[in-house]
């Protein structure tokens, strides 16, 4: 399993053709021997606009997409909802309301995020809207139904991969600005696999029987921000919202 993952990373990211052993050795480790993911990371792609391949439009850079197979297996009615979302995205996209972006959208908003890793908890501090996720390790999800914007995250280490199981979402967040959506039955499994000191392969499995006919996957590299004195700043989205929540028409 690990070998398959490593092989796909090397192919997908087009990094140096290192042998798996060499890759493992290049990873920074914590005193407990786990890969140390702490640091400031960022996805560099256009998934924020559309997770599928897309041509450029005004203000929208073209992109190759991050979805494996370049297709999202929507149920027919869910595909229609996506088209409607897309047509009305200026009004309907939860990003325009500065709501918490959900998972995995928070990862590829185009802003950096900081991973803080301890032996029992991995916290992810996103610059966007100071969104925060606490990934509790080796523990179980609380009993639902619960509807969190960012879901409930529980993590385990599988070799050098941090696997994060996320459930208890609401149905309010989107995957991108193109109206790709899910229901409250969303189940996300994220895999953070360090490739070397400065790269993580980020793979996501999306499952939502209400919206999709089968599970599907995204993947992308995450890059360590190497800027001198790099630190997370703030994007207080709600403060820039001049039409501050005044009524039910929001």
């Amino acid at each position, binding site marked *: 399993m690990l070998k398959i993952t490593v092989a796909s990373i090397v192919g997908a990211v087009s990094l140096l053709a290192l042998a798996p052993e060499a890759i493992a050795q290049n990873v920074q480790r914590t005193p407990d021997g786990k890969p140390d993911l702490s640091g400031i990371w960022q996805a560099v792609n256009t998934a924020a606009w559309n997770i599928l391949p897309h041509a450029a439009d005004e203000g929208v850079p073209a992109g190759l997409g991050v979805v494996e197979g370049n297709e999202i297996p929507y149920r027919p009615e869910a595909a229609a909802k996506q088209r409607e979302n897309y047509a009305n995205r200026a009004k309907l996209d939860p990003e325009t309301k500065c709501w918490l972006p959900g998972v995995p959208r928070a990862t590829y908003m185009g802003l950096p995020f900081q991973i803080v890793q301890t032996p029992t908890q991995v916290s992810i501090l996103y610059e966007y809207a100071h969104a925060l996720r606490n990934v509790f390790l080796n523990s179980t999800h609380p009993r639902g139904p619960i509807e969190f914007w960012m879901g409930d995250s529980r993590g385990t280490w599988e070799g050098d991969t941090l696997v994060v199981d996320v459930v208890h979402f609401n149905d309010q967040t989107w995957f991108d600005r193109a109206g790709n959506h899910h229901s409250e039955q969303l189940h996300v499994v994220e895999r953070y696999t360090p490739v070397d000191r400065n790269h993580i392969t980020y793979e996501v499995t999306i499952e939502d029987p209400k919206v999709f006919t089968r599970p599907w996957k995204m993947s992308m590299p995450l890059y360590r921000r190497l800027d001198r004195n790099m630190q997370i700043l*703030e994007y207080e989205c709600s403060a820039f919202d001049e039409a501050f929540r*005044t009524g039910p028409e929001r």
Partner: protein
Amino acid sequence: MRTRLRHCLMASATLGTVLWLAPALAAGQTWTPSRTPDGQPDIQGIWEGGPASNNAGHSLEDGCCDAEHNKMQRRAADNIGLRQQIIVDPPNGKIPFQPWAAAKRTEHLINLDAPTELQHIEPEDRCSLQGVPRSNLRGPIQILQIPGHVVMLFEWVHAYRVIPVDGRPHSPKGAAMWQGDSRGRWEGNTLVVEASNFRVDPVGYNKQPWIDSHGTFYSDALRVVERWTFVDAKTIAYEATIEDPKVFTHPWKIAYLIVRRAERHFELIEEACWEGVSVSNRLESGRITAKAGRQRPHSHSEP
């Protein structure tokens, strides 16, 4: 609401353990905490302002609230005011505003009582980041430590602070932040944090943190020096010195105890505030008050 309830519960549970700071500080010299791998005192865990700080986030001078508010919020009827003076310097417990700033603050208090425009809605009710030291005055705080950093996570509005303790320089002016820019250093068991480079709202709206809901604002000259003295495994003697030569006549200081949450397996949960906030009712009632000419500075006593 949940957070407030927790406050009440904790207040009743630990009221008997309120300590004055001086003996607590003295005890801090003797506690030997375990160390993190990079040699910091290990102070990780879940903390929360002790009962003395209850209500102080609303007003550092007056606490919170009136009986009517408590009834509306289903708060305990006697949960009013401050249990202990939070402002320890000056000794009168009042914020030393310059005259122009005191007038501005009164304006804020009038707008707080009867907001008629969006910009009158105070920062906390916008679910915005609370800044320093106010972030430490509402709800649980989780401290994590990784090499070179102390990280504070707040349940209230899922805020966080990343505090480098590795001697790196402050962020450049211009990159101002609601939480300010914090740099820390360890002096024995005391984490000293200097926070500056706070964001201010250039057009004078309330879209910047206030130090409390009672309109305690600041300028771009704000500098806060915090001293987090880890007295024992369960107690932090917290002090913050607040200086802003453009707004206050001299630096002033708050002090209170922060205590470790005793529950096992405590987890911060998502406090999604902005996603549900609406202020239309408050604006409507504020406009009715204004129309009737009944505007007055917000206070906890009957007019």
